[in-house]
């Protein structure tokens, strides 16, 4: 109990400054001397929530534009249980999740394969470099019009869009991951008796994993952002669509609730990727 309390205090940053920290004479500019500042995070959250409640109670801003936290929470409950236009909140979320996952996984698989081939062969690299370099800087949302023309507003178009977004990132990261292997490791593997295939599988690919994973984390964030926007442009269900549809009827409470849910989901994706990274690639950043 005592230990748990101390741990919580430490987490919030209320722990007594340790002896070594006190002895540092230069603190300004030393990154290790600047803590997490979690107590200030708690404070800022409290201020924001209080301000929100007070503003609503005093009715300075009409609830139509800025509903109270309670109203938002209430909407969360009703939509979670009764649904919005045919789907519950979970339903909308699952529809969005399906699109993200399909596009993300397809893009990752294809992107990693091409990226590896480009890292290994100058022919493949030369052939695909122009296309990749041309389409990579285009913001994925710019494809929406053409994708709507080609594929309509169904799931296929959105999956295609997320595929394109993921693909470019993964090609670049997988390629640079393959290139990042040191000659010494390759030489060592051959000298130990490995053949080409074994060098590829046990050295080059494993060595590229950290960069591939970084690519996956970035892609996941891009996919989520792109999808929500795409659903606002053209869809009949999904979290992005729900928010835009609610806005048409000035249902501000639903809009705000939707935005918060999107934020939490995006944060959740990043946390999951980070956990997976720690579990699967513990050697990352250690040499």
């Amino acid at each position, binding site marked *: 109990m005592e230990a748990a309390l101390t741990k919580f205090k430490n987490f919030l940053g209320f722990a007594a400054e340790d002896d070594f920290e006190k002895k540092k004479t230069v603190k300004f500019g030393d990154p290790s001397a600047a803590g997490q500042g979690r107590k200030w995070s708690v404070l800022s959250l409290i201020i924001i929530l209080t301000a929100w409640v007070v503003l609503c109670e005093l009715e300075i801003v009409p609830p139509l534009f800025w509903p109270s936290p309670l109203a938002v929470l209430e909407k969360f409950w009703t939509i979670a249980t009764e649904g919005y236009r045919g789907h519950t909140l979970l339903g909308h979320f699952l529809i969005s999740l399906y699109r993200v996952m399909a596009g993300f996984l397809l893009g990752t698989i294809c992107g990693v394969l091409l990226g590896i081939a480009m890292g290994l062969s100058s022919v493949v690299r030369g052939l695909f470099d122009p296309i990749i370099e041309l389409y990579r800087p285009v913001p994925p949302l710019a494809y929406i019009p053409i994708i709507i023309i080609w594929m309509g507003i169904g799931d296929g178009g959105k999956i295609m869009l997320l595929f394109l977004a993921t693909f470019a990132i993964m090609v670049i990261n997988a390629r640079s991951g393959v290139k990042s292997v040191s000659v*010494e*490791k390759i*030489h*060592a*593997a051959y*000298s*130990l008796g490995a053949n080409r295939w074994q060098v590829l599988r*046990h050295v080059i690919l494993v060595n590229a994993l950290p960069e591939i994973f970084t690519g996956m984390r970035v892609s996941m964030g891009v996919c989520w952002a792109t999808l929500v926007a795409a659903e606002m442009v053209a869809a009949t269900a999904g979290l992005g669509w729900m928010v835009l549809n609610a806005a048409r009827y000035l249902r501000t409470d639903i809009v705000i609730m939707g935005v918060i849910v999107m934020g939490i989901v995006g944060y959740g994706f990043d946390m999951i990727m980070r956990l997976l990274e720690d579990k699967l690639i513990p*050697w990352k950043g*250690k040499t």
Partner: protein
Amino acid sequence: MSTPNSHSELRVENLCMTYHTEDGQDVHALEDINFNMDEGNLVVVVGPSGCGKTTLLSTIAGFLAPTSGRILLNGEEIEKPGAERGVVFQKGALFEWLTVYENSVFGLKMRGVDEAKRHERVMNYLDLVGLTDFVDTPIYNLSGGMQQRVAIVRCLANNPSILLMDEPLGALDALTREKMQTLILKIWKETGKMVFFITHSVEEAIYLATDLFVMSARPGKIMKRYKLDFCHKGLEKDPRELKSDPEFIKIREEVLSLIWSMEEETAAHAG
């Protein structure tokens, strides 16, 4: 493939290596290198930096094809890297995603040796270098000296004819370095393998070598050869005492001034 009781020997004949640089210049990294190595030989190469030591090792390891001349290991010409030649690099060649044991067993696994046999061999060598307590430790949690011990074990596990080492102790602190020198002598004595060792520390070279080659730069040639026997006393006598032996110091100063004069010559040419 060598069997443990077959005799091993290395012959380097008229070896030349010329690099063609991008700006059209020819760098004669090695010119007419000749030497033979037999079982029990510990050849150490010293010389000013850029004199072609790494190039020589790379051709023996099979990473580079020589411009002319040839290298024969047990009568067979070297064309590419192979498990009968173990290579220890200065650093960065271990697989940081594997543990000590997994790194050590890598070669045997790739070559399809069965599990019981590879376990026995690897544990045997891990014991020799004193790493049995660290079998499951990830590589990145080891000190530099321990990492080099793993690098040696993973070569030995393959039972190679020769160990090729390119400044294997160059990145270690002074104290660890001296301990590792003694360990290398111990491994060499116990396994009886040929060892080809590159260093820029003259003291280390004289302490370890049965045959010491001093190389000159551009063109890279073997300038002087010494037959030494400090390595035979190295395990019985205290290493510090051995290294302050008058005979030892005499040779050390001789080799050092040789290298110094070459460095100055190169500098004069460049200037």
